[in-house]
Structures are given as structure tokens and as C-alpha cells.
């Protein structure tokens, strides 16, 4: 007779080994390492919760300190590698294989360790893709997560930074895995239940509150007049043109400039109520003036942002909040929302090639992908219509006699040169060389050219939907690439022809007076202006203050 419950029995064995360490579900802080050594087995698939913002930092330190003779060969499956400990576990031989999405600050060290053969990378995923695999072939055996508080029954309260926790715990708990949570505090009753106690096996109080990175705060003081000009073009040339109501913004000063121009420039164009009403977006402080001006009806978030807690609590009509008043974020849900329910994604990148493929990969760094690929890809499974989606689809198919369907607007917004005169437009992405040197099967492309609908630079907007041939597409891109070698290599006659057809539109073609593009147009020019716009509710991290 085949045993159909091997996983359940194995789980019972693990729990039995840990029984002496737990009082109910609570394990003493000092016993954290002993707990991990008791429940982990060599070769386990482990999810160590690393998010964009919230980090299970105490459990990361603890895992990096276990005895490699007892715990080794782990297969780490986590969305973000943010902390040094996330790589220390490989250096110490505790872990051997890695499947992940984004490695931002650890990208350079990761590349070195891969080159040295210390880490075997399974694949680099987009978020939804990795979360999907949690339920298919990368289900964690043990998950180490972080929450704000737990009660005696193991009910978890994550606070505003719910982020990845629900998807991780769901995949682990319902496949007979083990869920261990570090919490900032043990309480009698949690303000709300974000994760039911029945899905959680152990809770440990962390010696210090979990680390949260303020990743989405951009100081308006650093926005340049060129970025203001580009934001004006985005609003007038794309948002107004398509009537974009539902959207996601990438992270950066370019998009922060758009957010800060809504209550001023967009308002002056009479666009309130006509654009930017619904957002899949983290609570960007730069969005405060637009919210206060009545532009924004709803915002659902992947994660929270440090300092925005009281403001969010005071604007429950806009944000998704629990009965306790604090925000509930959810990366998996918001990624799905951004992919299927938004009409537009706009974000920056480091390099764009002649086909419109864009990449943030640089040599010597394996950075992985953030949220951009899921946001910045046409949702082939979308069926509901909206004016913006239909217009984009019409433009792409005009005259082709094809089955009508819509298309997502995917906008890449870059200055033609980055700092130190690095051109943003290149003949060949660095991603190719990185793929060769790191032994990847594919060049790491953030957004594929066939998903990009518009490229916006200080030189104008290239509408790739209207290009009918690969050559037109290339010249449209060259036509907004300014004085980069790619831009100087344009066919001037063809570019002027594309401009006549409206494929390329310069600021003057859009009726934008470049002399208006000054910082005076920003609804907030400093973090302090944002605090004042929030009525004192926004409490920025101290590194962003100048008071």
C-alpha cells in the first residue's frame, strides 16, 4: 500500500523534534537557532521572507548562524535578496541553490558568488512568476516570515507591510510545510488577523523590530527641470491623449515628477477626473498633493512606505485599510491587479536597444527584476475594455484587418543620457554580455520591445504602436534618442517623415512651451512641502528631512 501522506508524516517528525523548544507556538528568542536546526533538513526548499521593504532580518541572521554540518544544501526560494545574510547562507554552505526575483543592493556580490560557483541559480523570475511556482514546483518546505505582532494562537498582524507574507504562508501551510514567524511583539490580541494562526507553527519575538527600507520615497528637491519637461510630455502627450484612468508608476524621479505635476499642470489642462483616478501603487509620498487635490480615487499597494502610516489611516476612502485602520498591502494581489486591471505602466530603465527592449542589467551585477516586467507587459489574458486600452489596440492594428483587441500602454521614460554621459540608447544591451558571463539562458530583459508602446525622452515621444515595420520602429527610437550615438545615427528624412505622421512628437508638437518646464511647476519642491500637503500626517524618515 502506497503511503499518500509522506509530507504530513515528515512534518510531524519535524514538529516532534521542535516540541521541547516551544511553549504552545511561542519559541524563546534565545532558542531561535535551535528551532531552525530542529525543523530544517538538508536540501530543504526554504523561503526566507525578503521583501522590497519588510525584512525577516532576525530569522535571516539566525539561519546564517546555524551549524552547516546539520543544515546544508538548502534551496532558497524568495522574491528579494536584500540583506547580506541572504547571501551569507550560501557563503557558509548552509544553502546551495537559489530561485529569486530581485537582488537590488546585493546584485554585485551575487554576481561574484555565482562566478565563484558558490551559488547555483535556478532562475530569475518576475514576482508573479515566482509566486506562481510556489504553488507548482517550488513550494517551500519551511518558510521564515516577518510580522508586526502575534497572539498566543499564532494569529499574525503584519501591519501595513503585508507584502509577500500571505502568498508565502498559503503555499507553505497547505502543503504540509512549516511556517515560522518573527514578530516585533507578542500581544494578547492582534489588531486584525492578516494570517490565521492555524497556518502558523511557531512565533518568535525578534530582539529588534524588523527592518523596513523606505524604498519609494523620492525627495522632490532632486527633481530636475528636464524631468519636469518629460513629465509634462507624459501628461499631455500620453495620459490626456489616451484618457488613462488606471495605472501603475515605476519607482524614480521621472515618475515622481509626473505625480507632482498632477495638481498643477494636469489641473491646468482640465484633466482632473479624466486621468489617473485608480492606481496600483505603493503609497508614494509624492502622490500626496494629487490625492489632496482630488485626483486620486483609489490606491492599492504592493507594500507600504515608511512614514505614510498616519496619512493612509486618515484617507481610508483612497487606500485599502483594515478595520483597525492600518493599511493592508499584498504584493501578489497588487501585481495581478497591475498586470490585468491597469491601462498603463510607465517606468524608467538604464538601457534601451533599437528594438525597444529595455534592461537594467549592468555588467558585474545580477540585479534580477522588480515589479516592472509584470506591470510592463501586455496582459494577453485581458478581456475587459476601457477607452485607453481600446485606443492603443486600434493604433497597433489599424488597417491590418485583424481581430480587434486592446493593448496595454507600456511607456519607457528615460533621459537620453544618464549621469556621467552614459547613453540610455545602445545598439546592444549589456544584458547580452551579462548573460554570457553569468551563464544565463536568456539576456535579462526587463521589458521586451514588443510590449513597449511609447518611449519618452526629453527629445519627445516615440509612439511605437504606429510603427508598421521594424525599420520604422528603429528610426522612431533613434528619433527620440537625442545626441547619443544611436540618436546621431538616425535617418533624418525618415525621422521627419515619422514626425509628420505623429509617430514622433516633440514638445513643440504637443503645444508644450519648454520655458514653462521649471521646478516652480512641482506641487511640492521638498519633503517638507509633502509633509505640509499631508496636513502634518506624513512623517518622513529622518534621512529625508532638512528640518
Amino acid at each position, binding site marked *: 500500500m502506497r503511503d499518500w501522506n509522506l509530507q504530513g508524516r515528515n512534518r510531524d517528525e519535524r514538529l516532534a523534534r521542535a516540541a521541547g523548544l516551544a511553549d504552545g507556538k511561542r519559541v524563546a528568542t534565545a532558542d531561535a537557532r535551535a528551532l531552525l536546526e530542529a525543523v530544517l533538513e538538508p536540501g530543504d526548499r526554504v523561503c526566507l521572507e525578503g521583501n522590497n521593504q519588510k525584512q525577516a532580518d532576525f530569522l535571516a541572521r539566525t539561519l546564517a548562524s546555524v551549524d552547516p554540518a546539520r543544515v546544508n544544501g538548502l534551496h532558497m526560494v524568495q522574491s528579494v535578496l536584500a540583506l547580506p545574510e541572504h547571501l551569507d547562507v550560501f557563503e557558509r554552505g548552509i544553502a546551495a541553490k537559489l530561485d529569486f526575483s530581485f537582488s537590488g543592493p546585493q546584485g554585485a556580490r551575487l554576481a561574484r558568488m555565482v562566478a565563484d560557483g558558490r551559488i547555483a541559480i535556478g532562475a530569475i523570475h518576475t514576482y508573479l512568476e515566482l509566486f506562481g511556482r510556489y504553488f507548482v514546483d517550488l513550494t517551500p518546505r519551511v518558510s521564515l516570515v516577518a510580522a508586526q505582532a502575534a497572539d498566543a494562537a499564532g494569529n499574525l498582524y503584519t501591519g501595513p507591510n503585508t507584502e509577500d507574507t500571505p502568498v508565502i504562508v498559503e503555499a507553505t501551510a497547505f502543503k504540509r510545510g512549516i511556517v515560522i514567524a518573527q514578530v516585533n511583539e507578542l500581544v494578547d490580541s492582534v489588531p486584525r488577523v492578516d494570517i490565521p494562526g492555524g497556518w502558523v507553527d511557531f512565533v518568535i519575538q525578534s530582539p529588534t523590530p524588523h527592518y523596513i527600507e523606505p524604498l519609494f520615497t523620492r525627495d522632490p528637491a532632486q527633481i*530636475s527641470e*528636464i524631468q519636469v519637461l518629460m513629465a509634462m510630455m507624459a501628461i499631455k502627450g500620453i495620459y490626456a491623449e489616451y484618457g488613462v484612468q488606471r495605472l501603475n508608476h515605476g519607482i524614480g524621479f521621472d515618475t515622481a515628477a509626473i505625480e507632482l505635476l498632477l495638481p498643477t499642470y494636469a489641473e491646468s489642462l482640465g484633466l482632473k477626473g479624466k486621468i489617473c483616478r485608480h492606481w496600483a501603487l505603493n503609497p508614494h509620498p509624492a502622490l500626496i498633493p494629487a490625492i489632496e487635490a482630488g485626483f486620486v480615487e483609489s490606491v492599492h499597494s504592493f507594500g507600504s512606505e515608511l512614514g505614510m502610516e498616519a496619512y493612509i489611516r486618515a484617507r481610508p476612502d483612497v487606500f485599502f485599510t483594515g478595520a483597525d485602520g492600518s493599511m493592508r498591502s499584498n504584493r501578489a494581489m497588487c501585481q495581478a491587479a497591475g498586470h490585468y486591471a491597469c491601462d498603463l505602466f510607465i517606468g524608467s530603465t538604464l538601457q534601451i536597444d533599437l528594438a525597444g527592449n529595455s534592461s537594467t542589467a549592468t555588467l558585474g551585477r545580477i540585479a534580477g527584476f522588480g515589479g516592472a516586467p509584470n506591470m510592463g507587459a501586455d496582459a494577453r489574458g485581458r478581456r475587459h475594455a476601457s477607452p485607453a486600452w481600446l485606443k492603443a489596440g486600434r493604433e497597433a492594428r489599424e488597417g491590418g484587418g485583424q481581430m480587434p483587441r486592446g493593448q496595454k500602454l507600456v511607456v519607457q521614460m528615460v*533621459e*537620453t543620457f544618464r*549621469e*556621467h*554621459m552614459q547613453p540610455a540608447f545602445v545598439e546592444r544591451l549589456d544584458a547580452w554580455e551579462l548573460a554570457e558571463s553569468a551563464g544565463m539562458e536568456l539576456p535579462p530583459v526587463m521589458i521586451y520591445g514588443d510590449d513597449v508602446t511609447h518611449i519618452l525622452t526629453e527629445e519627445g515621444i516615440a509612439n511605437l504602436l504606429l510603427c508598421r515595420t521594424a525599420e520604422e520602429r528603429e528610426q522612431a527610437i533613434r528619433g527620440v534618442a537625442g*545626441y547619443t550615438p544611436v540618436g*546621431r545615427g538616425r535617418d533624418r528624412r525618415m525621422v521627419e517623415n515619422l514626425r509628420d505622421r505623429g509617430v514622433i512628437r516633440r514638445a513643440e508638437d504637443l503645444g508644450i512651451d519648454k*520655458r514653462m518646464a521649471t521646478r516652480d511647476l512641482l506641487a511640492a519642491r521638498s519633503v517638507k512641502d509633502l509633509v505640509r500637503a499631508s496636513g502634518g500626517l506624513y512623517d518622513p524618515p529622518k534621512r529625508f528631512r532638512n528640518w
Partner: protein
Amino acid sequence: METLTYEYRGGRPVNSPPPSVLVGVVGSGNLEVLVEPAPLGGLCRVEVQTAAVGFGATWQAVLDDVFARHPLADVRISINDVGATPAVVGLRLDQALDAFAGGTQP
């Protein structure tokens, strides 16, 4: 540091120009542009001191377009640059030359 000089012909002199116009600041990613009337026999001369070495062709392309927008004669344009991007260079030159031709300091 690199010194670059460019000369343009075929422009028109400005009637009663201001004694000079200065725009911008010599800071990282920025530049200062000084525009003065000068008896150059109809030439427009641009002298660039730049911290970013090896971008002569880029300067040429940017300045060609600037001259096409502002065809001026008997003008001396002096630039101190700290690696400004072409976008910033074009913006500052437009600001400076608009002010010079319009006779107002921005």
C-alpha cells in the same frame, strides 16, 4: 579638462544686445553659459571648457542644432561645463540666447 572651439557663419547680429548674459552654474551635471556681443566679422564663436573629455562630436551636434534655432552673428559664447548632458546644455543655451536676443536677463 578639454577645450573645444566651434565657429558658425551665416547668422544675423542682434540689434542693441545686452552687454552680456550669464546662465547656469558650474556644478556637477551643469554648466555656465556666458554670451557677449563681439566684433567677430559675422562669426558666432563658441568656446567650451569641459570636464568631460572626448565628447567633441556630441558638442558639435548639439551646437549645430542650437545655431539652427538661434542663428546669431558677432556673438561670443563661453561655456564652463562639468559634464552636463546634452539636454541640459541645450536648455541653458536656449535660455541664454533667448535672453540675449530678447535683451533681457533671465
